[in-house]
């Protein structure tokens, strides 16, 4: 692509250069030829000058012949002196060989002409002498008339004056042109047989040139001859002075003179003619030179024309080629660009699709979470409610299993959702104060059963320097603890699990919390150590089969750790144990930071009696579940399954608060809220609205608040969550019962009536009696216990708790028994009021759950008794 564009530009540049170069060349050529054309041709000028000089010379000679005044000859001599120069300059100007030849012949001709002219002049000069003689003769004739007529000289006849004529005539002889046959050396050298016409033209001057030499010789000969002759006659004439002779001689001489004159005249005529011929020839040659010059200039013009044409041709050719290449390259580039664009579009499309997929995935997850959580809400909620009804031990066991499975399922779903959120980076950390120890104890409590079942030893140690309160996200801290501890327990068949927490102070009130969870379990093979933090990875697939789990735990821990800017590392040896070390960054907090968290863990439902609460949910089961709970709390509840009805109801009634499901089929909870708020604005009312949502992310839940809701309750919720939310919304203080109500969701001890039934010998009354006794005594004992605690009567506490243990054991209330035992031990040795207080509260909390079960059992059995009696 880039290369192609560069190539195009290079070609364009090249084409432009070629065109420019050719154009410039042609233009200069044109300009030169035009310049040459516009300048007068010096050759022609000098030729013309030569010609005019010649004619001047001729004219002057003519004038001289007529006038016989020697001053008239000045131009002639001038021209002779200048003509050479001019011819030389012509030579210099001429470069063409043909022209040189012509100029040569021209020069020769001109020289001939000049010699002829000189001859003419000479003849004229002689004539002048003869005229003097003529006058003498005339005088003699006059004398003769006076005396006798002199006899003409006869002797002279022997001199044969005819010879002169002959000679003159001889001069004349070569006059007629006898061209053709003589071929000059020039011709032999240069004259090729190929050019027919120029041969002819060049032929003539050469011939003339060749011919000239003998002619010139002849003429000079004749001139000297004639002068000799005249001299002779002069010498002879005075010899005989016989008057008649003289007369005769004179007349003879006169005759001769006349004849001579005649001959001279003839000669002159011939010379003139020759001169004319010469002149003609010269003119011809000049014309030829001129013609040649013209042809040359025409040729030059033609050459210029040709060059221009060629240049135009080259230019247009280059132009066309460049254009074609341009077009091709442009096409290629455009196609490249369009292909690029197409690819870009495709990429964009793919990206959009990927984004859409990611969105769909997220939506799917949130939908899934909703879809799963909603029924799970019912399952767990009803299970919870069932636990408060009278059940026989088997049923209790089944129910416990259901509850446990429900919780487990919820944990898995939460794990997956957390993982998805962590993966997409949607998870944000809270900044809440929490107690490290409290969190740890809470987590360990939930594992108590498992630990006991596997007969493991569990130790935890929080070093003294660890800050009591840290600020961070307790939920995530718990998650890390839960994952690591559950892993440790899961993979440790026997031995111990140890948790150690230490702290290292950093700058700006930050601390690095170091958490080490080690076990004496099966360990992880060296080769697998690297992959355990990967998603869905367990050391091997066999592990999954044997120990179960999603394999998400550690990768979630790792992701949460990195969210905390922390590190996680693992040391492990097969069959010896594994040790996970997690380092997390937290801020140190103060007691005040804790308050909120504490407040949350309280339940005391008496203040809710008589409250009017509207519940809107399209899920029948959920509605019923809430109704069951609300009925128990004696809340005046209105249950509605459609949004529109809810709006109508709100208009007619006044509610203390509203629970609103967000995802409803017809109108969403958000829309309903909007309309209710609109209505309320007109009537200056404000009912707190709490969203019931199975939202997967906190952000989604927060959006409910943006839509005018006061808060949200995440599904699945426990009874405790529900209570707390109502209490919080209605501003009911639950401080009084705080702490005693922690872990209300923990399944209560199941009652074991096996022994009683066995002892009863088929008499249900016995069981009823025993149960009544238990309840009656436990009530009293619990109060005594509380009283003793208040008075810090350790002794009594010990004895009371001691006494309370056996019945609890007998009925299978293990949790109660454990707590009582702890109280007994505690009050005997350490007397930690805080701890015992907590234990007592635990017992009363548990007992509150157990008592209804016992009562229900009693009423059940009594019903059976009365039925059988009837």
């Amino acid at each position, binding site marked *: 692509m880039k290369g192609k564009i560069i190539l195009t530009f290079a070609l364009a540049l090249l084409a432009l250069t070629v065109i420019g170069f050719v154009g410039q060349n042609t233009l200069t050529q044109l300009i030169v030829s035009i310049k040459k054309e516009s300048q007068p041709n010096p050759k022609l000028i000098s030729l013309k000058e030569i010609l005019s000089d010649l004619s001047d010379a001729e004219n002057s000679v003519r004038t001289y012949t007529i006038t016989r005044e020697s001053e008239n000859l000045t131009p002639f001599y001038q021209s002779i002196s200048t003509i050479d120069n001019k011819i030389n300059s012509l030579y210099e100007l001429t470069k063409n060989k043909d022209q040189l030849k012509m100029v040569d012949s021209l020069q020769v001709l001109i020289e001939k002409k000049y010699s002829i002219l000189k001859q003419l002049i000479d003849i004229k000069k002689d004539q002048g002498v003869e005229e003097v003689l003529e006058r003498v003769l005339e005088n003699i004739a006059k004398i003769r008339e006076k005396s006798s007529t002199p006899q003409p000289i006869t002797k002279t006849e022997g001199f044969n004056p005819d010879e002169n004529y002959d000679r003159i005539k001889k001069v004349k002889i070569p006059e007629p042109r006898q061209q053709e046959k003589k071929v000059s050396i020039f011709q032999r050298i240069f004259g090729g047989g190929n050019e027919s016409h120029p041969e002819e033209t060049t032929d003539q001057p050469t011939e003339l040139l060749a011919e000239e030499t003998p002619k010139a010789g002849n003429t000079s000969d004749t001139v000297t001859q004639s002068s000799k002759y005249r001299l002779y006659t002069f010498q002879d004439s005075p010899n005989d002075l016989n008057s008649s002779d003289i007369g005769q001689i004179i007349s003879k001489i006169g005759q001769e003179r006349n004849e001579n004159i005649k001959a001279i005249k003839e000669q002159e005529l011939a010379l003139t003619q020759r001169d004319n011929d010469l002149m003609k020839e010269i003119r011809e040659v000049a014309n030829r030179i001129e013609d040649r010059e013209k042809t040359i200039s025409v040729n030059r013009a033609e050459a210029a024309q040709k060059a221009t044409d060629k240049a135009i041709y080259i230019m247009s050719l280059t132009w066309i080629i460049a254009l074609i290449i341009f077009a091709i390259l442009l096409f290629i580039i455009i196609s490249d660009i369009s292909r690029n664009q197409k690819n870009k579009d495709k990429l964009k499309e793919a990206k959009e699709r990927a984004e859409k997929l990611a969105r769909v995935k997220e939506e799917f997850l949130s939908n899934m979470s909703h879809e799963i959580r909603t029924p799970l809400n019912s399952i767990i909620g009803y299970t919870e409610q069932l636990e408060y009804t009278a059940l026989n031990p088997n049923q209790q066991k089944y129910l416990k299993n259901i509850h446990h499975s429900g919780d487990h399922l919820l944990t898995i779903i939460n794990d997956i959702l957390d993982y998805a959120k962590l993966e997409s980076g949607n998870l944000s950390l809270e900044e809440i104060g929490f107690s490290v120890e409290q969190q740890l104890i809470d987590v360990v409590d939930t594992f108590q059963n498992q630990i006991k079942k596997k007969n493991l030893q569990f130790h935890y140690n929080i070093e003294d320097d660890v800050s009591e309160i840290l600020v961070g996200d307790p939920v995530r801290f718990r998650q890390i603890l839960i994952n690591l501890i559950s892993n440790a327990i899961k993979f440790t068949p026997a031995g111990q699990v140890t948790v150690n927490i230490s702290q290292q102070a950093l700058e700006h009130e930050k601390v690095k919390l170091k958490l080490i969870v080690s076990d004496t379990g099966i360990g992880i093979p060296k080769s697998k150590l690297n992959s355990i933090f990967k998603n869905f990875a367990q050391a091997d697939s066999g592990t999954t089969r044997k120990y179960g789990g999603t394999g998400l735990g550690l990768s979630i821990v790792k992701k949460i750790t990195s969210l905390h800017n922390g590190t996680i590392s693992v040391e492990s040896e097969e069959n010896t144990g594994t040790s996970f070390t997690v380092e997390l960054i937290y801020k140190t907090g103060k007691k005040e930071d804790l308050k909120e968290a504490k407040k949350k863990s309280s339940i005391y439902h008496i203040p809710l009696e008589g409250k009017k609460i509207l519940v809107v949910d399209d899920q029948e089961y959920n509605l019923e579940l809430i109704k069951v709970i609300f009925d128990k709390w004696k809340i005046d509840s209105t249950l509605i399954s459609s949004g529109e009805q809810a709006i109508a109801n709100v208009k007619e009634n006044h509610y203390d608060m509203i629970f609103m499901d967000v995802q409803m089929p017809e109108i969403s909870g958000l829309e309903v809220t909007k309309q209710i708020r609109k209505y309320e604005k007109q009537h200056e009312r404000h009912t707190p609205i709490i969203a019931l949502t199975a939202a997967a992310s906190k952000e989604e839940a927060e959006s409910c608040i943006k839509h005018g809701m006061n808060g949200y309750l995440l599904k699945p919720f426990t009874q405790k969550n529900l209570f707390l939310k109502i209490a919080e919304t209605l501003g009911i203080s639950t401080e009084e019962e705080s702490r005693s109500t922690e872990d209300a969701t923990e399944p209560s001890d199941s009652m074991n009536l096996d022994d009683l039934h066995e002892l009863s010998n088929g008499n249900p009354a016995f069981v009823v009696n*025993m149960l009544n006794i238990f309840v009656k005594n436990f009530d009293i004992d619990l109060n005594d216990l509380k009283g003793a605690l208040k008075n810090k009567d350790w002794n009594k506490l010990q004895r009371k708790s001691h006494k309370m243990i*056996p019945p609890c*054991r007998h009925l299978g209330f293990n949790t109660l028994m454990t707590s009582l035992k702890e109280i007994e031990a505690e009050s005997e040795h350490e007397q930690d009021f805080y701890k015992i207080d907590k234990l007592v509260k635990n017992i009363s909390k548990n007992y509150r759950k157990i008592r209804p079960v016992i009562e229900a059992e009693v009423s059940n059995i009594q019903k059976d008794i009365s039925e059988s009696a009837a």
Partner: protein
Amino acid sequence: MDIIKQQEEVSKLDISKRNAPLKVFIVDDDEYFNNILQSYINKIGTEINQLMETQGFLNGSDCLKAIKKDPDYVILDFYLDENNDITLTGYDVLEKIKKYNADIKVIVISQMHEWENFKEEFKHFGASDFLKKDDNLYDNLKEMMRHSDIDLI
């Protein structure tokens, strides 16, 4: 209480059928466990084919008042602390029973495991045996009764 009386009547009926029902006093301040123990004794009685007569007392003084009934066995919770009656702990009751009639067999029962080490101590004080309040209570009790039964015959 009516039910308990009913039960007692039933036991009495059994005793009347058999020649010599075993009289067992149970002293435990926890009513629930007291009842349980009575039930256990009765159950053991049916299992070993021995008529049993049980009577429960929630404190030592009641038991001592009824001691003239000459029970064969007294199952005594050592940890009698009802109403802070430190004057009449398990020790005192044991002592007094033995003073009244050394033949009355007293089984000390407690759920304080560490007291198991004092088994010999208890015996020294006149107790026939020591029972832990644990899951094996019933079986241990049954075993004891059986042995004593053999002893009696």
